[in-house]
């Protein structure tokens, strides 16, 4: 019951934020010079443009258009890409591209966490020693290394100079799993690098704090091996911030993959946004951006809610 009320208290602001954000997006589309329908199909006849304006609700004024768009999306009609003469259904496009982007993000998160967890634990354990100083400096430097610069430098080294992998392209995992993973290495590495640095720093700070707790001294004095103390007694309580931050990053990463997907020509949702802007598909662009911000707000709300459920202390502090 309590959880349900918490959920509602979060969902209502979340819903209103999404509604206002998407409304502002459609307002933004109105600022385009000229008729949006004419912009979408520059080579189409006047009749076709009128038809499209009617179909998308662009002829109904700002509020009418927004209501049409909103109710359409709500009932599962995501709108269309208008190509010369024909169209592509956006719902199908999203169904094809969203899994690719999610896969890219999840791979990057896995790689980042696999690098960050041992490094963070080790450098916290050796706090102040040379290993920690070197790791901390390197991590602080690389956390701000832009992923697109990394992507270009990686593809220069590994694809152009060494020729180990193809610089661009994408194969779906059901088609050829080996090839799929091979092509995903560079984009995943470019995304994971900066993430790993951030995670390592977070984990290091928390582990250093936990190591000072009495029960850790107790565990160590019982004669449990250092490795076991570190993994069993220290890592678990220290990982909350890390996991929260990893979950929060999911939303931000959907935006961040646009450049990576464009550089490596991966048919994900980011690439579709880039394409829809280039092809001036204002309706498609609005839907895709709305989708990303819905995902972003959704992840943030869910993380907030989950922390409240799992950690009662945050619940009391609010009241």
């Amino acid at each position, binding site marked *: 019951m309590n959880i349900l009320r918490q959920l509602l208290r979060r969902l209502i602001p979340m819903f209103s934020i999404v509604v206002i954000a998407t409304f502002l*997006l459609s307002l933004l589309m109105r600022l385009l010079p000229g008729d949006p329908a004419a912009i979408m199909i*520059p080579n189409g006849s006047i009749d076709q443009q009128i038809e499209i304006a009617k179909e998308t609700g662009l002829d109904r004024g700002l509020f009418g258009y927004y209501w049409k768009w909103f109710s359409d999306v709500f009932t599962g009609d995501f709108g269309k890409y208008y190509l010369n003469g024909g169209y592509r259904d956006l719902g199908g496009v999203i169904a094809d591209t969203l899994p690719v982007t999610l896969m890219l993000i999840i791979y990057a998160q896995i790689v980042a966490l696999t690098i960050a967890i041992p490094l963070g634990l080790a450098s916290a354990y050796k706090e102040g020693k040379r290993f920690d100083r070197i790791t901390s*400096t390197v991590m602080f430097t690389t956390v*701000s290394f*832009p992923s*697109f610069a990394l992507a270009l*430098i990686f593809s*220069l080294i590994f694809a152009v100079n060494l020729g180990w992998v193809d610089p661009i392209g994408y194969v779906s995992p059901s088609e050829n799993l080996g090839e799929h993973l091979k092509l995903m290495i560079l984009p995943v590495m470019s995304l994971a690098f900066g993430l790993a640095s951030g995670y390592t720093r977070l984990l290091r700070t928390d582990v250093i704090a936990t190591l000072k707790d009495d029960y850790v001294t107790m565990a160590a004095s019982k004669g449990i091996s250092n490795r076991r103390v570190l993994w069993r007694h220290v890592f678990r309580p220290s990982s909350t911030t890390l996991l929260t931050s990893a979950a929060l990053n999911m939303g931000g990463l959907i935006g961040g993959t*646009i450049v990576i997907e464009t550089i490596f020509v991966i048919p994900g949702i980011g690439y579709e946004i880039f394409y829809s802007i280039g092809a001036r598909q204002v309706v498609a662009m609005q839907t895709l951006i709305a989708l990303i911000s819905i995902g*972003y707000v959704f992840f943030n709300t869910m993380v907030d809610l989950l922390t409240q459920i799992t950690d009662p202390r945050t619940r009391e502090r609010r009241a």
Partner: protein
Amino acid sequence: MPDNSLSSTETAEPVVKTKKPRKTIGFYLASAWISLVMFLALFGWVLPTPQWDEASYDNLGVAPFHPSHILGTTNDGYDMMASIVNGAKISIIVSLVAVLIGGGIGSFIGITAAYFRGKYDFAVTMIFNIMLSIPNLVLSLALLSVLAYSDENNPASMTRRVVVLIISLIIVIIPILGRIARGSALQWGSREFVLASKSMGSKNFFIIRKHILPNVAPAILAIGFLAVGSVIIVEGSLALLGIGIPGGASWGSMLANGRGNIEYSPHEVYLPALCIAFTVISFNWFGDYVRVKLDKRESKI
């Protein structure tokens, strides 16, 4: 650490006693790099380089350390050194102007929201949350593609694009710094000295200027430096996506142009990429240093 805090609270001159942040080698490298980039941005025209937008057709895509082109040329014959210098000017101007104006507006809105509370605060928080719900790259992408709309018939001019880019980045920066300013100012607005000042009849904006702003400034400044870094990244990303500054006039734009020639003249890619990376890293180092140095409270604890 504990006895340090004890002595600093008991002695009459706590500020002297507080631990100074260690100036690491990274800090010096960061300052050196920022100074160099600033120098290039301001006085780059004194360097004996060719015009950045004039191609030399005798030297197409030569590697760095060529006698007449110290950093080589692009595949189209543009001098890399001149392009880097010009790119430094545009990239630094764009990011500094965007962060200064956006940070100024954002801090003002955030601090006043935290100070006056009520409906105004509610509305500001709501607007900030809405703007933050769209990832910053996506937001600037949408703003830029609409505001700098151009097609074959009416291409947007260079100046217009730069101005629109700065405006988009300002809009992106406002909620980021505004939220930091608001959060930080909330802690100070209800303190005793603010109440005391109020009871003496001080005007609201006098209190904000004299009592709240100095306390909030370190946090804003530190995040401001980080924001310069992220704005440079966003500028580069937008250029790579083909809707930022065109024609190799900024670092990001150089990357976008050189990407196709990565096999023939790799320096076209790695030089601007490293410039962007070093600048972003340096600003982050700097921001971290400023945060530790200015935050005397934190060093006392």
